[in-house]
């Protein structure tokens, strides 16, 4: 078990830089998820920690060692790949023991460790089979088993659940979380799936175009997204973003149609400056008498049982808007609704920099 610290880590391929100086530290035993859209550099960053990609600038430390120049095998890490990368010509037992065999661990010890790990992962009946005789979920478990028997300082996961079907993914997600808590090994997990990220990680590192947008707990990211990108990336359905301007006294936002949304605080912004106002669909409530802040005509209604999602075109400047109401609401499209929202659930962003300003 070790902590990992990244110090202004950069990566370029020729003249184009894909990772622009990422810093952050991962505590011992912590489960950190790196999340972001495809092409944001999250896999590259993970592979740099693993030693599969060279580091152009900055420093990576695992434990107290600077590992920039170390071979992957010397970093005492284990990695689980998206396509599992099992050795097809070896049995499950040999797959799991290969790394130990190379490290010249005594035979008895290898057998003990593999059998223990197989027990944890419920793989004992399959030890003699070859990977192609296993189902997707079992292969996934073998890949994890191969990582666990090594007793590494750090686990690295590169989208390990992407090749599984939806049901199995949810199940394996829970298993990974339980396993990580049980073993307490520092883990870095890469995914593009924000639900996976939110459920698994102690902390999330949101990457966009090679830079960190925000690094914090799932609830931090949800409650106080630092940037417009994080705001729209985390949460489903995505946060509604409306254009607006700052009022005279800087304590409310005026929407293009003239509605005034009070913020309950003073913004540090000039009156009349344009801003982006974010509201999560689940924070918008149906207005009771007199407290309506804005209204719109519903367009498409999704009735999901547990909740109802109302989609609508809102105003001129915004394309669409979603509202999520608890329970079943029997409404037809084209109905006019009035809505309200609490000031603490409002997110204000500077449209230029994308940074949060409230």
């Amino acid at each position, binding site marked *: 078990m070790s902590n990992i610290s990244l110090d202004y880590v950069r990566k370029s391929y020729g003249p184009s830089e894909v990772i622009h100086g990422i810093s952050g530290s991962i505590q011992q035993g912590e489960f950190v998820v790196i999340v972001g859209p495809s092409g944001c550099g999250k896999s590259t960053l993970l592979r740099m920690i*693993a*030693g*599969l990609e060279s580091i152009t600038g900055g420093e990576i430390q695992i434990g107290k060692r600077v590992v920039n120049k170390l*071979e*992957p*095998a010397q970093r005492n*890490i*284990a*990695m689980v*790949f*998206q*396509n*599992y*990368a099992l*050795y*097809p*010509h070896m049995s499950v037992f040999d797959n799991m023991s*290969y*790394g130990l065999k*190379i*490290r010249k661990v005594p035979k008895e010890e290898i057998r003990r460790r593999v059998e223990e790990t197989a027990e944890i992962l419920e793989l004992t009946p399959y030890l003699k089979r070859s990977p192609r005789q296993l189902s997707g979920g079992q292969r996934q478990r073998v890949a994890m088993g*191969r990582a666990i028997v*090594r007793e590494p300082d750090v686990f690295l996961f590169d989208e390990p659940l992407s090749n599984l079907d939806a049901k199995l993914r949810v199940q394996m997600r829970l298993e990974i979380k339980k396993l990580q808590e049980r073993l307490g090994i520092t883990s870095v997990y890469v995914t593009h799936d924000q639900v996976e990220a939110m459920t698994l990680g102690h902390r999330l590192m949101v990457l966009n175009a090679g830079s960190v947008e925000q690094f914090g707990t799932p609830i931090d990211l949800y409650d106080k997204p630092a940037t417009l990108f994080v705001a729209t990336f985390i949460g489903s359905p995505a946060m509604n973003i409306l254009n607006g301007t700052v009022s005279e006294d800087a304590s409310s936002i005026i929407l293009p149609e003239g509605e005034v949304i009070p913020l309950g605080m003073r913004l540090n912004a000039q009156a009349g400056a344009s801003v982006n106002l974010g509201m999560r669909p689940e924070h918008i409530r149906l207005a009771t008498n007199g407290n309506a802040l804005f209204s719109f005509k519903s367009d498409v209604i999704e009735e999901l049982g547990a909740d109802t999602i109302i989609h609508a075109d809102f105003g001129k400047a915004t394309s669409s808007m979603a509202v999520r109401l608890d329970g079943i609401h029997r409404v037809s499209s084209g109905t006019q609704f009035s809505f309200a929202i609490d000031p603490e659930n409002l997110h204000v962003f500077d449209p230029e920099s994308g940074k949060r300003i409230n």
Partner: protein
Amino acid sequence: MVENRPFFDTLTHIILILGVILIAFPIWITFVAATHDLARMSQAPIPIWPGSHFFDNLKLALEGKVVSGVDMLPVWKMMFNSLIMALMIAIGKIIISILSAYAIVYFDFPFRMGFFWMIFITLMLPVEVRILPTFEVVASLGMLNSYLGLTVPLIASATATFMFRQVFLTIPDEMLESARIDGAGPVRFFFDMLLPLSRTNIAALFVILFIYGWNQYMWPLLITTDSSLSTVVVSIKEMLDSAERTPEWNTIMMTALLAMLPPILVIVSMQKLFVKGLTETDK
């Protein structure tokens, strides 16, 4: 086809049977000729049904000595020479090309693609095209009349290199990365991963290359003047070359039959791996 049309079924069968007859007939004639004595074989028309001298001819061929007035090695000796040549060519080609494919696919050295294309271009230069310079090189290396002279110039192989390259390219990169994390160096990775994974391809190549080596005619003819090194394929042709006498068809055909055996044995014994190696794409 799934259609049930008796006429087409019959027609396709007739065509297939004709094809089999066309290919099998010369072999039948060879077999028949190997079962008659010299007297019968010297008369026209040649027989189409087997005679009773099979074992006499087998004895004649195995003993060797003078056939059609040409001094001959015993057949087993010629076949031994052919076997050594075919094995050295097949195994040598496989070793050289699997190593060069390994270098080209997995190592990032300067002018990598340049080397790949240089190897690839040699596809256009079979022995027959470069026969004079190659002979010169072999002669000045003092390799005339030796097994090395027989095989070394035929060993470098662009096709096999290319084939192994394709095989290696189908092995996912993650497998290499996973092995690296497990601590396998380049040599271990080669022996623990690449070799077992290309087992069927090696077998398929071995079959093809063994037959290629066994059937070599022009190069052995040129490089060996010492008759103790002559191979069976070259010798059969020499037996026919007697100027004044009728060729001893019975002995020659028996020799030809014997010469067919080793390639058949190789194909039959490695058939399963051969088909797998050429058709399997999943790694």
